[in-house]
């Protein structure tokens, strides 16, 4: 219950921060929006966006619109309803982020366990080098290279936009690279730490096979830090989605917000940011629960 309260508090803080941030922009948004501003047009836009009212009133109006009518206003560039645009782009981002998350968790865990199992050999070196490279390569470049190879040269996969599963393969793999490398490093360290403990020696002593030791005992312990990481990972995935979606012309929130920032489309920026941050916070909330379920020490 206390955590639920702090989640709601954080969401409110986020809404205030997002609201204020956009108002910090130097220059009059109304003036920026018009190609050839006349005093009447400026006054009209200011009235429409309620820019002529004091800040707290503006915030209250915005919040009333968001929670009362579920409306984020209209894009000042395209004139389209921001809520509808978000509803249209949101599923695409979730599809991409979930696919990438699944991929990153499975590939990362596998690579981490593989490295830990062969600790100190060339296989371990290969695994850790791979994960280090994964952390160092810019995602958007990887996306460009993948497109070059698989779409233009080999013609195996479509080069962008959303569609059936073949459209999803490249963006998901590219977006998953950094989180997978992260998971691999963390799970390798976790498995190595567990393998040195007494209960593993006991399991071995009572005759458990190396396989059983690894997958029944060590994996379980390695899962705890990996699950804790999911929240951070999810935040990263949504951020990385901005770049990945731009490269692959994926019609998600990430590309939407990147376009909105370039066009200084404030209602769109506010709406998209609020949705993204709320998603990350909710995810952290869920992860907290999972963490408590997995770690008996934390139960009270």
């Amino acid at each position, binding site marked *: 219950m206390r955590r639920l309260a702090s989640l709601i508090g954080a969401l409110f803080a986020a809404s205030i921060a997002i609201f204020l941030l956009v108002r910090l922009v130097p220059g009059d948004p109304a003036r920026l929006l018009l190609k050839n501003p006349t005093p009447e047009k400026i006054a009209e836009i200011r009235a429409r966006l309620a820019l002529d009212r004091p800040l707290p009133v503006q915030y209250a109006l915005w919040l009333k619109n968001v929670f009362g009518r579920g409306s984020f206003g209209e894009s000042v560039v395209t004139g389209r309803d921001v809520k509808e645009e978000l509803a249209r782009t949101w599923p695409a981002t979730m599809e991409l982020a979930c696919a990438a998350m699944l991929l990153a968790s499975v590939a990362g865990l596998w690579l981490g366990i593989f490295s830990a199992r062969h600790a100190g050999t060339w296989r371990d070196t290969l695994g850790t080098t791979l994960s*280090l490279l994964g952390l160092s390569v810019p995602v*958007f470049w990887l996306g460009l290279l993948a497109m*070059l190879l698989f779409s233009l040269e080999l013609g195996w996969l479509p080069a962008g936009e959303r569609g059936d599963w073949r459209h999803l393969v490249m963006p998901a793999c590219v977006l998953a690279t950094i989180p997978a490398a992260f998971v691999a490093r963390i799970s390798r360290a976790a498995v190595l730490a567990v393998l040195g403990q007494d209960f593993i020696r006991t399991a071995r002593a009572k005759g458990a096979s190396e396989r059983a030791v690894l997958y029944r005992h060590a994996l379980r312990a390695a899962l705890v830090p990996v699950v804790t990481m999911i929240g951070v990972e999810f935040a990263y995935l949504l951020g990385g989605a901005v770049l990945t979606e731009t490269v692959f012309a994926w019609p998600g929130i990430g590309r939407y917000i990147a376009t909105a920032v370039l066009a200084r489309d404030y209602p769109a*920026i506010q709406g998209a940011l609020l949705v993204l941050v709320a998603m990350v916070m909710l995810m952290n909330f869920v992860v907290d629960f999972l963490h408590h379920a997995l770690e008996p020490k934390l139960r009270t």
Partner: protein
Amino acid sequence: MRWSRNSGLNAGIALLAVVIVAALLAPVIAKHGPTEQPYRAEALAGPSAKHWLGVDGAGRDVFTRILYGARVTLGIALGATLIAIGGGVLLGALAGTMRGWFDVVVSHVVDFLLAFPSILLGLVALTVMRPAPASVAIAVGVASLPTVVRHVRAAYLSENAKQYVLAAHAMGAGRWRIAVVEVLPNCASLIFALTALTLGGAVLEAAGLAFLGLTGQPDVAEWGMMLREERSAFRIAPWLCIAPGIAIAWTVLAFNLISDGLRGSRR
């Protein structure tokens, strides 16, 4: 094991040295200034003996721009890291030493900021500022600050519980003296590792923001910006997209190797 850790650190330093030399000697090695366009007739030419990495769509030698890009990239990364480490160590140390309400406020704000994906923080910070390399440095620095605060605060908390702090306290040292003279040196290796990590992250993030078009004028010789510009010629001249990406990955890898090496030697 020890050997392989040091070899990682050495490899990182060697990789980084190449980037630094490229940045320092750019005007000496390069064929022309970073924004001049002397080879318009050879636009989109492939790699050759004269142009090692080809010529871009605007008639500029790509190798030259990569060299100048090292200056821009290292400059942004250094600026961002100065902000992140300077502010982060200060806030983390203050929170970890003072405790009380200040600690509560700082921890909450940090937790709150960590819920924002860092590239989004940078993106939003750039909406507020005029797009330019200096703004990118500030945006990236602010976006990396929360992570540094969290690590330094945690280190101060665990150090403060140790016996040597108690001993210093018993000998009559004040809490600020202990924080600076006793605890800070013990956090030094963590801070160095964090610095290298932040530098690498800043390179990656700045390149991403530039790729989205938020660095300002398109003729700035910045690696992420080059990828953005050359993307349009992607189908005709794919080699133009290879070099800037390798340059980014090279630099980030150097910082990550150094960070790992520093962290390894701490234990």
